[in-house]
């Protein structure tokens, strides 16, 4: 399978360029199960009227990252998706039982596959958008077409590239036909990570046009009330929400706060009840606050050192291999990520259920710290003696400039003298995209499927492949895996693809990073989903 559209899109780079710091994060949370229980009991025997009477309380949550728009089909920021997801629903949603990530119907009451390219969705009856119009098969088709071929073009259009035909079987049933089996479809059709599957009110889109992002109308548990720049985004309960017993809160405010330590102070002093993100440098401090619960874990991401394979000295595979084995990941985790991250051996990260190998450390696959091995590869390198390289760094991301400074002495051990060059984020991104660098560290963030974590990033000639790495076998393996639905077979293909990538080492892996959210203890029923976010559907305040 080829996915040529992937070439034109550069949303990760745009994302990185637009706002470098904390592009938006998705949490992966462990040991959760409380929310599911609360949900089940809330759903039992409650009439909508009773549920309505239950809505009380006002939650205020610090939102620490930039929010560009509340239009799900156009946002580049996960911090925006966090809010969007409380206003809208997707055709599918991501669920998490504490162990595994699953994709389940959301606005769809059921989801069937008639064959490996045809999907049948039956919608819930009587669901209405906040403007009172019906959310039926026509509305769903409208949203999907807005993503696939709308004008202006959605940055998520590529996710529906393989969608050939949408057939409206009856007012509540749709048949989606794809041109090929599409392994990424479950992710694509969610309202959260996929964005492509978020359903918006056609009437509102027609009414507001380009300004829909400031006047979003969905079917979600909360209605949009107002967005005051640099201050807050206000939501109120949707009393007609289709899932019984939700929401429980009457109001929710996302306070737009720039300074994380102010948010922590406000949380501790009770001026707000939650934080959409707790930066790594504050995690250990927040852990000690008795009135606050911290939720978090390693998520679908990886950080790495990228090397420019198009020019000397890193056009030499043995020199790259030497770098890959010369990095003491344990030290990087301690000094770069406050001891909170997990060493990465390959790109596929822990939340990718069925693809991630929990025993990867003992498998002999991937890259790890082995100075002897690094020196052996270094001895085979074309250039012997000291090599001087320029390493571009910027104050951005979970590691800031700390990672670069931690790595410099490690590379000196194998005769690579690193000249650190500090740049402003926009200039840094530009040099990376122009291929005007020798070495830098970067990250890919918030992925749930190997399809999105490997292929667009390292595809030969791909626009995210800043390293200029070229490997036809890697391309073939990824393309094949993308058109197979069976997880085990896919996993096998991705493992082979990863082995090529790790062996030729255009990048040296560093770590998988945890993402944290903080809530006051009186906030109850927060259900963690591994992909996004701050879903307030089941949240209440004691």
């Amino acid at each position: 399978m080829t996915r040529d559209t992937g070439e034109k899109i550069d949303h990760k780079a745009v994302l990185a360029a637009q706002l470098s710091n904390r592009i938006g994060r998705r949490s992966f949370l462990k040991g959760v199960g409380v929310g599911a229980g609360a949900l089940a009991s809330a759903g039992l025997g409650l009439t909508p009227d009773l549920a309505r009477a239950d809505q009380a309380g006002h939650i205020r949550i610090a939102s620490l990252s930039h929010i560009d728009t509340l239009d799900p089909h156009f946002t580049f920021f996960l911090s925006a998706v966090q809010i969007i997801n409380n206003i809208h629903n997707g055709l599918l949603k991501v669920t998490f039982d504490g162990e595994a990530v699953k994709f389940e119907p959301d606005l769809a009451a059921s989801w069937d596959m008639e064959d490996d390219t045809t999907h049948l969705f039956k919608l819930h009856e009587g669901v209405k958008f906040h403007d009172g119009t019906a959310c039926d098969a026509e509305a769903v088709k409208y949203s999907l077409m807005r993503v696939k071929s709308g004008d202006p073009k959605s940055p998520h259009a590529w996710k529906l590239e393989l969608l050939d035909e949408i057939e409206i079987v009856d007012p509540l049933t749709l048949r989606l036909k794809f041109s090929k089996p599409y392994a990424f479809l479950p992710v694509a059709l969610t309202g959260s990570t996929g964005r492509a599957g978020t359903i918006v009110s056609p009437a509102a889109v027609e009414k507001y046009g380009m300004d829909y992002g400031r006047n979003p109308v969905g079917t979600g548990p909360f209605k949009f009330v107002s967005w005051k720049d640099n201050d807050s985004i206000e939501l109120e309960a949707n009393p007609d929400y289709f899932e019984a017993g939700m929401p429980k809160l009457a109001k929710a405010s996302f306070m737009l706060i720039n300074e994380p330590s102010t948010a922590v102070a406000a949380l501790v002093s009770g001026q707000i009840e939650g934080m959409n993100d707790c930066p790594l440098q504050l995690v250990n401090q927040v852990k000690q606050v008795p009135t606050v619960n911290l939720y978090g874990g390693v998520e679908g991401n990886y950080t790495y050192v990228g090397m420019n394979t198009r020019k000397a000295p890193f056009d030499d595979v043995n020199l790259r291999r030497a770098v890959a084995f010369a990095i003491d990941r344990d030290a990087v985790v301690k000094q770069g990520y406050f001891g909170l991250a997990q060493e990465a051996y390959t790109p596929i990260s822990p939340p990718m259920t069925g693809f991630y190998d929990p025993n990867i450390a003992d498998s002999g696959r991937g890259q790890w710290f082995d100075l002897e091995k690094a020196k052996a590869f270094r001895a085979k390198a074309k250039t012997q003696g000291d090599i001087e390289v320029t390493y571009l760094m910027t104050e951005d991301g979970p590691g800031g400039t700390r990672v670069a400074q931690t790595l410099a002495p490690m590379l000196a051990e194998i005769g690579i003298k690193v000249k650190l060059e500090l740049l402003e984020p926009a200039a840094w991104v530009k040099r990376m995209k122009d291929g005007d660098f020798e070495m830098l560290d970067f990250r890919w963030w918030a992925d749930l499927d190997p399809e999105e974590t490997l292929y667009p990033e390292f595809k030969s000639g791909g626009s995210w492949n800043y390293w200029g790495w070229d490997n036809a076998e890697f391309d073939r393996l990824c393309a094949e895996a993308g058109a197979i639905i069976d997880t085990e077979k896919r996993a096998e293909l991705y493992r082979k693809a990863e082995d090529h990538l790790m062996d030729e080492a255009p990048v040296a892996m560093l770590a998988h990073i945890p993402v944290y959210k903080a809530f006051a203890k009186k906030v109850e029923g927060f259900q963690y989903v591994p992909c996004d976010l701050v879903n307030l559907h089941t949240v209440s305040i004691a």
Partner: protein
Amino acid sequence: MLSQAAGKIAQTLVVLLIVSIASFSLLKLAPGDPVLLMLGSEFDQASYDSLNHALGLDQPMIVQYAQWLGNFVTGDWGVSYVARADIFNLVVREALPVTLTLTACSLGLAILVGVPVGVLSAVKKDTAWDAGAAVFALTGTAFPSFFLGILLIWFLGVKFGAFPVMGFVPPWEDFWAGLYHLVLPSITLSTFFIGMIVRVTRAALVEVLDQPYITAARARGEPGWRVVWVHGVRNIMMPVVTVIGLQLGGILQGAVLTETVFSMPGIGQMLTNAVLGREYMLVQAGVMLTAVMFILVNLLVDLSYPLLDPRLRPR
């Protein structure tokens, strides 16, 4: 006197013109193509060209500048690239009142504290009082405001729970709640200012108190407080007002940090977010507005001299 004022105003207009050119160049020199910012990652050449044309970016630079200046003067500040919000509304109606309120409170606090402390230390020159005031003033001037803000947040806000640590409530909607929210930010922002005022007040008053007319007033048997507060303070108004005028630029600068630390939706926080979100038109509007405010205040200071000191009035 009128011709003097007219001259000052003409000077100010020239300065404003220069500032507007600098402000305009800022947008042109900033990295990133505004059309790309607005279109996102996916577009074709036709939509690029049409937007480029709609924004007037295909016009010669001088035409663009004239258009921009004309629009700016008439209050048509355009729509921000990414958020698509009306800039005039955002900057002038929403952010400016917050910053002005914060500035006014800090300024008021600085004058209420700074002038009396300065006067006292001048009157009690070379005593422990004077030394104490000098230490107080120096510490206030030297202490970085963002750090003081964080200290205040942690001690007064979190530890003792005495004041809110963030946010802004408009005092014209709820006066006491508004004032309550302004306590910590005003202290943070005014400390630097207080130090300056104390030093200037003291220095000026020490000099004034040596003047013959003060001796004369004392000889007439006027009470000490009257000598100092009426004859003395009236004659130090000029340097004090000058320092306040000049430092207002500093206070606006401090407002960027203070608003960020206390998460107040003023010009400072708006500028920070605009820079992070690459909303250059917002940055430009914010910079222009700040410059206009600074220049206007200095004009007012200049114009106030003849009122403060009769000797400067033309005969």
